[in-house]
């Protein structure tokens, strides 16, 4: 579909320097230029002068809107409780107690310890998100490259799980868990997280596009076993897709609130979302008589920093068309 388009700008693949020795910066620059070349030049749209500036201004406004809460939490994590409620929200105030607030997170409160929640969240995200990625990869590969009876039906069932209103069935799930003794078990949190219909869908599409059947057939003719083929031939080709699925799966687990809220009654098992929620509610309920506020703010900050960092580092995996293009299609 768009193949001729890209061929145009790369009509003559002259590499100015030796190929393969591009530094990361050079490569990024080249990719950016290629991306520009691949888009229709703006002048062709016949816009009035100043349109670009106007639209950029709108973007800036929305960016401010988007970043405001993040800026707020960053700034206010340095304040004392009084500071939070009395000083101007978007600027600093004396005393500056960023590190003090940070240390507060280490103490045990009635509702639990922050860093224990952090560790829990890491655990659930790693096992749940990582496991989901693995399973999605296996299932995607299975659905894409193997024909077996009813494969289409199973696929639709799996993807159909998207339709399941998760929050609505969480309570019934709790009741099921109660019978299965899964209340207050980390597996109760991890197992449901392993099932990612979005992940399976994405991986199947990705495998379809990136793992040529001929390659697998050639390997089979050469006598390699299926596992070996998967590990040595298919898996390396699937990596970008897997990274994308990993990103969404980990985010989904990290941000999950309702499930752990229902199934965990012991606060030592809470992930960060539930823990923070409890703190926040406790603080509000006592109407300013507790001194939890700085902890809530600082806790919130520490919760979002890893995810944002992960996002920025793994940008290429959610920028790429694959991620959400497949959902959109």
């Amino acid at each position, binding site marked *: 579909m768009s193949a001729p388009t890209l061929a*145009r*700008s790369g*009509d003559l693949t002259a590499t*100015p320097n030796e190929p393969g020795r591009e530094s990361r910066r050079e490569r990024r620059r080249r990719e950016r230029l*290629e991306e520009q*070349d691949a888009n229709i030049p703006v002048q*062709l749209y016949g816009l009035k002068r100043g349109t670009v500036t106007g639209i950029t201004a709108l973007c800036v406004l929305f960016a401010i809107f988007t970043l405001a809460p993040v800026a707020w939490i960053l700034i206010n994590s340095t304040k004392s409780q009084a500071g939070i409620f009395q000083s101007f929200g978007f600027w600093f105030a004396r005393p500056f107690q960023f590190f003090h607030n940070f240390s507060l997170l280490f103490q045990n409160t009635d509702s639990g310890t922050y860093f224990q929640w952090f560790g829990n969240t890491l655990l659930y995200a790693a096992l749940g998100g990582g496991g989901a990625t693995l399973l999605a990869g296996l299932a995607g590969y299975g659905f894409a490259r193997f024909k077996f009876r009813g494969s289409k039906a199973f696929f639709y069932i799996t993807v159909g799980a998207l339709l399941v209103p998760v929050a609505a069935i969480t309570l019934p799930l709790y009741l099921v868990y109660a019978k299965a003794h899964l209340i207050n078990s980390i597996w109760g949190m991890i197992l449901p997280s392993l099932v990612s219909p979005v992940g399976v869908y994405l991986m199947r599409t990705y495998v379809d596009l990136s793992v040529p059947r001929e390659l697998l057939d050639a390997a089979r003719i050469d006598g390699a076993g299926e596992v070996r083929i998967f590990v040595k031939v298919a898996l390396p080709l699937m990596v970008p897709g897997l990274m994308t699925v990993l990103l969404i799966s980990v985010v989904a687990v990290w941000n999950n609130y309702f499930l752990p809220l229902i199934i965990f009654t012991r606060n030592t098992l809470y992930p960060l979302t539930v823990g923070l929620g409890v703190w926040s509610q406790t603080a509000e309920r006592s109407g300013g008589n507790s001194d939890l506020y700085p902890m809530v703010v600082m806790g919130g900050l520490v919760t979002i920093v890893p995810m944002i960092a992960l996002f920025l580092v793994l940008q290429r995996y959610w920028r790429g068309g694959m991620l959400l293009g497949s959902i959109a299609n």
Partner: protein
Amino acid sequence: MSAVSLEGLTKVYATGVKAVDALDLNVEKGEFVVLVGPSGCGKTTALRMVAGLEGITSGTLRFGDRVVNDVSPRHRDVAMVFQNYALYPHLTVAQNIGFSLENKKVPRPERDRRVRDAAGILGLSDLLKRTPRQLSGGQRQRVAMGRAIVREPAVFLMDEPLSNLDAKLRVQMRAEVLRVHRRINATTLYVTHDQTEAMTMGDRVAVLRSGQLQQYGSPRDLYDHPANLFVASFIGSPAMNLFEAALEESGDGTVLVLGSQRITLRAGGGTRGGPASGAPASGAPASGGPMNEGPASGAPASGGLAAYHGRKVVVGIRPEDLGDPAVGGGSREGGTSAGGHASHAHATLAADTRLVEMLGSEKHVFFSIDATPVRAEGVAVEAANEDTATSGILAGAAPNGVARLDPRSSIDAGTRVRFTVDTERLHFFDADTHQAIQTTAC
């Protein structure tokens, strides 16, 4: 004054890639000009520059006497048929064709009339209410053409419109495109990588390679007088046989040394080679530029070969210029040696045949001689060792040449034969510059 003229048109991308390099071309009103070349040669880029979809880095583009470098593609009055048709999937055929007229606020009744007319010319009248999804490839292509012609633009651009069709349909559509062209007499620039399309459709053909124009002339011109090695091997199928050779002086004539064989050429170096310098043989109006002449080899028009005596050259022999002496010469002459062709000097070439393909209308004989074959880019090829796998099958060394013979020839594989060689039609190229060597032509 040409309808479209490209003067030194160059395109360099931000990444430093030079897609088109100083292209000089003109298209007369109503002419059908084909841009042909291998993938990546810049032909599509050049087309898009004419459309205005690519910016021009340097050079001048004129429509008539108007410089249009900076004119937006919206206002150039140019219509384009894309390789993938670019039809709007959610609109009917009628709406697709009429889309541009909507933009120009043409009133409904007139719009409908023009759409119906265009559909009529293209045989789409029954399909006006269908959507592209319900059409075959050939039909979609015609809708794309309809969309272009309904605008009655000054210039028509076509970007490999037949590439996505299967072979049989392509042949049919070639005729269609030409029929429509004749009907509306539009100035057309047509891009393709298929040299057959170029040769059969173009009034004039421009061969491009790596962004540079190799030769521009009528199909006849390109075939009979290729300006360089690339054009010689690109045009014509099966491709021209090219070998390393040497020329020697002999009396007042020239002898071609090809492997271990010596072939006498007519005295005065009167064999043909290189395009006619300044000759209007091609029928195209002289553009004044250097493109219609041969290479600037500096060799004098007559006895051009004399300058190469004692030097290495590349000799080109078209497969149809080799013949079976038993069947009266090359397949092109057909018939018996009625003696009427005595004026063509026929030398002979000894060769070992390797493989024979009987096509019915002609016979292709693959042979090898002990000369070094030359690839289009001018790279000499290692002989026999290249393909040990086939050597057994092909009874000896791999073939390095092919001859097109009269179908009545009874030459077989694995024999030693002598082909007749029409020395008047030999082509010669400078071994270093790859340019054709000029000789007296007429």
